[in-house]
């Protein structure tokens, strides 16, 4: 009997234990995240077969829902928690050696001439990292709207702190922007939750969903807009994503990988759960599809104009979020499956891109794309990984991006609506722009000889190993998409069928 609550309780216990443990040994902290995440990955995989048959509903404290908080480990929850554990594990292996090799950071430390920086904040980095992932796991597993808010805050606050972790000018400034927008977003979310509680007298998501039709649509509309706006800040939906490029480009690269690969996706998950399961709102889906395409085009166009590689990747994440949102708002079985597939594919590819870019930046000592000229010969393996990630994100055939984009196009065509056809045309235009800027980077890496001579050293093995695993995953799933489509199909079914969700939780 595996209990999903272990996925949250065990990481929390170990994160709480780190301050006490580090009194004995300073080095212990950095090995805690990989160990915990291996554990989480195993638990998630053990839960998966049961969750596919029937969602595992666990109530906390021994009361029956709706009188307690409950966790719902359905296909969606377990899929997300497995991805969080997997990506988190690989990135934590990467950060064993990559704590702060950012050149800017090192300069600042040299300037301030203060010793002892390495040890103190490094253990804080690992605690915050672990708690960020725990928050993300909590968001995807919980079945209670206020509990979702609490875990969302865990996720957000630890990412504010991690964005500021390098303590350089850019990092602090972006963290401030991120914090202000995020805090306003969470306040709006809380107002929305309060309105829902006032209307329905309960906080259990299934219970609210059951009663949603008893109140006039107009008074439900306001809390829905407030909640979606609040969650949309983290999910980087178009008018709410001004913080993202700054935050993702000035965080340490390992954190950028997590923010781009996990935090945004969890935000999107929360938006979807609220729209599909709680409100069952089909009326605003068209608007969301439009918003998705707008987000996509703006993200890709801005990415095209960037000369800073991490900002380019960050804007590309905005574009991808738009595509995923568009696919999910088609709200057919194909569409949601395609959207979830694209989400998985974006997580793997973007994490790989940020990890590879991290060491390239470190060696080149600059974030400008032009400074990376000729890197292909200096760091062949890292650049190969970067290229594979880029090709996968663009959607070239042998990689995971191809089947996911293919599914989205098929879903849009199968819906047989002219509006959607126009939008998918625009989405393909966005993909073309995406291809253009990624090929530009790849061309700089391989086909230009550098004027400046960057240090010719490959990344260390602790960084190459996770990148290698990402590459293997991207290629294998790209060739045999059947490995994941089964899970994705049942996940899509869970999201679309709110009556089953209500029945599973409330019995």
């Amino acid at each position, binding site marked *: 009997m595996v209990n999903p609550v272990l996925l949250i309780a065990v990481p929390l216990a170990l994160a709480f234990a780190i301050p006490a443990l580090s009194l004995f040994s300073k080095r212990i902290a950095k090995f805690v995240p990989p160990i915990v995440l291996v554990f989480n990955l195993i638990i998630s995989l053990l839960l998966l077969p049961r969750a596919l048959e029937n969602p595992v509903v666990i109530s906390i404290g021994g009361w029956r829902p709706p009188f307690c908080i409950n966790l719902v480990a359905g296909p969606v929850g377990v899929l997300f928690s497995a991805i969080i554990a997997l990506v988190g594990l690989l990135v934590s292996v990467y950060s064993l050696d990559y704590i702060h090799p950012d050149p800017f950071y090192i300069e600042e430390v040299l300037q301030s001439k203060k010793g002892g920086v390495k040890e103190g904040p490094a253990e804080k980095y690992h605690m915050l990292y672990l708690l960020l992932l725990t928050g993300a796991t909590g968001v995807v597993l919980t079945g209670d709207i206020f509990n979702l808010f609490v875990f969302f805050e865990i996720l957000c606050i630890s990412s504010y702190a991690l964005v500021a972790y390098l303590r*350089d000018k850019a990092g*602090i*400034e972006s963290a401030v922007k991120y914090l202000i927008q995020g805090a306003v977003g969470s306040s709006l979310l809380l107002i929305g939750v309060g309105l829902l509680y006032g209307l329905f007298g309960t906080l259990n998501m299934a219970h609210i969903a059951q009663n949603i039709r008893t109140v006039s649509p107009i008074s439900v509309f306001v809390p829905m807009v407030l909640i979606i706006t609040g969650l949309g800040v983290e999910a980087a939906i178009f008018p709410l994503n001004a913080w993202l490029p700054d935050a993702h480009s000035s965080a340490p690269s390992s954190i950028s990988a997590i923010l781009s690969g996990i935090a945004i996706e969890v935000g999107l998950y929360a938006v979807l759960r609220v729209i599909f399961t709680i409100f069952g709102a089909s009326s605003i889906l068209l608007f969301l599809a439009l918003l998705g395409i707008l987000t996509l085009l703006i993200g890709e166009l*801005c990415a095209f104009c960037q000369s800073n590689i991490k900002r380019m990747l960050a804007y590309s994440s905005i574009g991808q979020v738009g595509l995923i949102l568009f696919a999910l708002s088609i709200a057919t079985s194909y569409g949601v499956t395609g959207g979830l597939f694209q989400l998985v594919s974006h997580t793997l590819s973007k994490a790989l891109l940020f990890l590879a870019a991290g060491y390239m930046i470190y060696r080149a000592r600059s974030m400008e794309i032009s400074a990376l000229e000729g890197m292909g010969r200096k760091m062949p393996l890292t650049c190969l990984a970067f290229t594979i990630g880029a090709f996968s994100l663009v959607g070239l055939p042998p990689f995971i991006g191809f089947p996911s984009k293919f599914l989205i196009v098929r879903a849009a065509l199968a819906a047989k609506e002219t509006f959607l056809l126009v939008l998918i045309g625009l989405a393909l235009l966005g993909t073309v722009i995406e291809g253009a800027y990624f090929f530009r980077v790849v061309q700089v890496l391989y086909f230009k000889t550098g004027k400046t001579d960057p240090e010719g050293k490959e990344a260390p093995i602790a960084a190459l190993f996770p990148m290698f695993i990402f590459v293997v995953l991207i290629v294998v799933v790209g060739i045999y998409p059947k490995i994941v489509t089964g899970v994705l199909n049942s996940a899509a079914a869970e999201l679309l069928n709110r009556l089953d969700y209500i029945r599973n939780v409330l019995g």
Partner: protein
Amino acid sequence: MGFLDNYIYYIGAFGLIFVGLYIILVKHNLIKVIVGLGILDTGVNLFLISVGYIAKGTAPIFSRPGIDSEHMVDPVPQALVLTAIVIGVAVLALALSLAIRLYQHYGTLNLRKIREQRW
């Protein structure tokens, strides 16, 4: 007076929320913006508590035996607000630490003047 009786708390709560949002949207000084966040939080908390109030209610504590449970106010919003207050102070503390660092870097707290990064 009946109108005020019914809505005075809502008016107070949303008044605070709007003043808080106004400060955040309009002011340039970071500490001022954080003060605005605090006011916004207080407003949201007051709103949640007033949702749970019951006319002529008593606090949900059985401090002596035989207390009337019929008119007790809803305990759930109070529990939520306890959580929200602590989360609010956590965010404020983190924001202020960032403000201190920002001042050390730039020598100003005016967000208009701090434009290292652009679109």
